[in-house]
C-alpha cells in the first residue's frame, strides 16, 4: 500500500464537500477513465464579487484522487476567481502534506478540474494540454511522454543527456533501461541508431575515505553530504536552480533550494531525489527537509 500522509488519509476517510452542487455556475469534468481517475468539480461563483462561494466534487478514483479533490474544494472556497487560477498542483499536494510520486497526477487532475470549472463559468472553452505517459523515473517523477518529447526536440542521444534535461535517471538509476528504450525508439524514427557504448562515463565524486568501523566522523559525514549535493548541482543549474546544505541534525538534513528550484513545481520531487542519493551514499537512513522548516516547530507526523 502507498505511504500516504495522515492528511491524505483524513481527506480520504472524511472527504469534505462531496456531491453534486445545485445551482453551480461552473463545472469542470476532467480525468481519464482508462487510467482510473476522473473528477467533476462544481463551483458557485458570486457574479458580483467574483468569489467562489461554494465548491463540491464527485470523483471516480483512488484514495489520493479523492483526497486531492477534497483538498481542492477546501483550498478554493472563499477565493476570488483570479486568485484560484493561481492554485497549482503543488499547492494541493502541499495541503495534503505530500503525495507519493506515482500519485502526483492526482493533484494535477485537481488543478485541471479547477481551470476547467472556471473556464466553464466564464463561458470559455477549456483546452487541456494534458499528456501523461507511464512514469519512467520514480525518483524525479518524470513520465515517458516528457522524455520522448525532449529526446525528439533536442536530438538527445544518451541517457546522460536525458538526465541533464529532465533529471530522469539521475537518482537510483533503475530506469536507465527504460530511458534507453525510448532513445532507441525515437532515434530510429529519425534514422539514427542508439549506441549504448557512446554513453559517457558517469563521473563519480571522489570517494571519501570511510572512517574506521563505526562510521564517519561528523566532518567526514558533512563533507560527503556536500559531495553528493555537488554531484547533483549541474542538473539543478540546468534548470536555473541550486541547493545548499544548511544544517545537519542527527539524521535530518536541512537543504535550502534556491533560484528556480525554490519555486519549482518539482521541488518536493527534487528533495526526494536528493534524499535517495544521500541515503545510498551515506549508507544510513536520513531525511532531507527544506531549510525553511528549520525555523518551524517540529511537525508531529513525519513523512517522505
Amino acid at each position, binding site marked *: *500500500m502507498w505511504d500516504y500522509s495522515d492528511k491524505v*488519509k483524513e481527506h*480520504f*476517510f472524511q*472527504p469534505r464537500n*462531496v*456531491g453534486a452542487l445545485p445551482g453551480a455556475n461552473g463545472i469542470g*469534468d*476532467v*480525468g*481519464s*477513465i*482508462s*487510467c*482510473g*481517475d*476522473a*473528477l*467533476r468539480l462544481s463551483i458557485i461563483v458570486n457574479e458580483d464579487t467574483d468569489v467562489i462561494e461554494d465548491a463540491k*466534487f*464527485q*470523483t*471516480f*478514483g*483512488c*484514495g*489520493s*484522487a*479523492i483526497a486531492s479533490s477534497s483538498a481542492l474544494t477546501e483550498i478554493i472556497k472563499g477565493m476570488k476567481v483570479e486568485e484560484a487560477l493561481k492554485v497549482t498542483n503543488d499547492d494541493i499536494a502541499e495541503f495534503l502534506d505530500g503525495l*507519493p510520486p*506515482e*500519485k502526483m497526477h492526482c493533484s494535477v487532475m485537481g488543478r*485541471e478540474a479547477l481551470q*476547467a470549472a472556471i473556464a466553464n463559468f466564464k463561458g470559455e472553452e*477549456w483546452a*487541456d494540454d*494534458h499528456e*501523461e*505517459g*507511464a*512514469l519512467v523515473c520514480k525518483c524525479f517523477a518524470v513520465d515517458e511522454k516528457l522524455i520522448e518529447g525532449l529526446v525528439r526536440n533536442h536530438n538527445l542521444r544518451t541517457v546522460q543527456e536525458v538526465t541533464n534535461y529532465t533529471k530522469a535517471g539521475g537518482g537510483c538509476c533503475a530506469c536507465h533501461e527504460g530511458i534507453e*528504450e525510448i532513445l532507441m525508439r525515437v532515434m530510429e524514427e529519425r534514422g539514427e541508431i542508439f549506441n549504448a557504448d557512446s554513453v559517457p562515463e558517469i563521473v563519480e565524486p571522489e570517494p571519501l575515505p570511510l572512517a574506521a568501523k563505526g562510521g564517519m566522523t561528523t566532518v567526514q559525514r558533512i563533507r560527503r553530504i556536500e559531495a553528493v549535493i555537488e554531484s547533483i548541482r549541474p542538473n539543478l543549474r540546468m534548470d536555473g536552480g541550486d541547493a545548499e546544505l544548511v544544517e545537519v541534525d542527527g539524521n535530518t538534513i536541512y537543504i535550502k533550494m534556491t533560484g528556480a528550484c525554490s519555486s519549482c513545481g518539482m521541488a518536493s520531487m527534487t528533495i526526494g531525489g536528493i534524499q535517495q542519493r544521500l541515503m545510498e551514499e551515506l549508507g544510513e537512513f536520513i531525511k532531507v527537509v527544506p531549510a525553511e522548516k528549520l525555523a518551524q516547530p517540529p511537525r508531529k507526523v513525519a513523512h517522505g
Partner: protein
Amino acid sequence: MADIYLDNNATTQCDPKVVEAMLPFFLEQFGNPSSIHSFGAGVGRALGKARKQIQALLGAAHDSEIILTSCGTESDNTAILSALKCFPNRKEIITTTVEHPAVLALCTQLEKEGYTIHRLGVDSKGRLDLEEYKRLLTPNVAIVSVMWANNETGTLFPVEEMAEMAHAVGVQFHTDAVQAVGKVPINLKNTKIDMLSVSGHKLHAPKGIGVLYLKRGARFRPLFRGGHQERGRRAGTENAASVVGLGKACELALEHIEFENTQVKVLRDRLEQGILAQVPNCFVTGDPDNRLPNTANIAFEYIEGEGILMLLNKEGIAASSGSACTSGSLEPSHVMRAMDIPYTAAHGTIRFSLSRYNTQLEIDRVIAAVPPIVAELRRLSPYWGDNGPVTEPEKAFAPVYA
C-alpha cells in the same frame, strides 16, 4: 477482533508445522548438505525427504524431477530460457495474454530481442480458444508457457490437454502452476507437461523457495551454472531450512486438498453470493464454473479499487485489486482488459482469496462490511445518482481527456 486475511493468492501465512520443521535448520543443523561431515549429512537427508514430499504433491514419477529454485519467477524464467537454448533454431513462443508478469515481462523482453511471441487471447470469461492454439503450434515453436490457474480470477486453463497437443508436434510445454499447486489435484506422471513452476509461499511455506519440475527426458539447459547442486541444473547452495519447510507444506497441502475443494470452496461461495445478493451493479469476473476453489474476483461498477481496499483495510480486512492505482500504472489489470471488462468496472475489481485458515465467522463479517463501503464510494462517484447509476453514465460524465 483479529484482522481477516483474504489475500492468499498474493501470499500465505506459514503453517506453524512448517515453521516448526524449519527451526532446527538454523541453529542445530546448519551444515552444508554437500559436506561430508555429520553437520552436512543430516541436512542432506532432510533435503531428500523434502524432495519426496514435493514429488508426492505433484505426482511426479521421480524425485530427481524436482529442481529447487528461489521462487516461482526463477522457475518460469529458467523454463523458458532453457527451451530457447535447447532449440536455438526455433524463434517462436506461445503464451497467453493473461499470464503473470514473471512470464509476460520476460516474453516482452524476448520479443525485443527478435523472438516472435504468440499471446493467446481470452473470451469475456477468461477462456482460451484451443483452435487458435492448434493453428499456432508448429515446429517453429520453442516452448509453450500457459498458466494452470489465473492469479486474479482463479480461472483454470486446460493445461493437460494443451500439453498433449504440444507433445504431438514435438514442442515443449511449461505451466506456471504457482496458484494451482495445493488447490487442484495434480498428477504429473500421467501428463505430457515437461516443466511446471511452484512457489512455496503460495501454499503456506516461506517466501524465497520455489520448484521447477522437469520431466525426465525433457531437454534442459540451466540458468545458473556453478556447483553440482540439483545435479548441476541449478547451482547454488540449497536454501535448506526453506526446502524443509516447503516439503512439510507439500505434505500438509496433500492432506488438505479435499478440504480446499469442499470447505474452503463453500466459504468462497458463501462470500460471493452474500456480496452479490446485497450490492447492486457488481459481477463475478472469470469463469465461475471452472476456477480455483479459493478465489472470488468481483467487479464493483463505477468505483475504484484502491478506495475499496483502503476502507476494507480500515475494517481489518485484507484483499487486493486489479485497479491501475494499486500498482501505480496507467492501466487496470491486463487480465481484466484481456476479458474486455469495461474500464468503469475493471478499476473496481476486488480479489478475495481464501485459505484453509479462514472461518465462516470471518466470511460473514466481510459480507456485512462490503455493502456500506461500496455505497460510500458510490456516493462520491460522478457516475452514481441517488438510487443507482445515473442515466447513460458514459454520456452524463465524459471527462475531457477520457
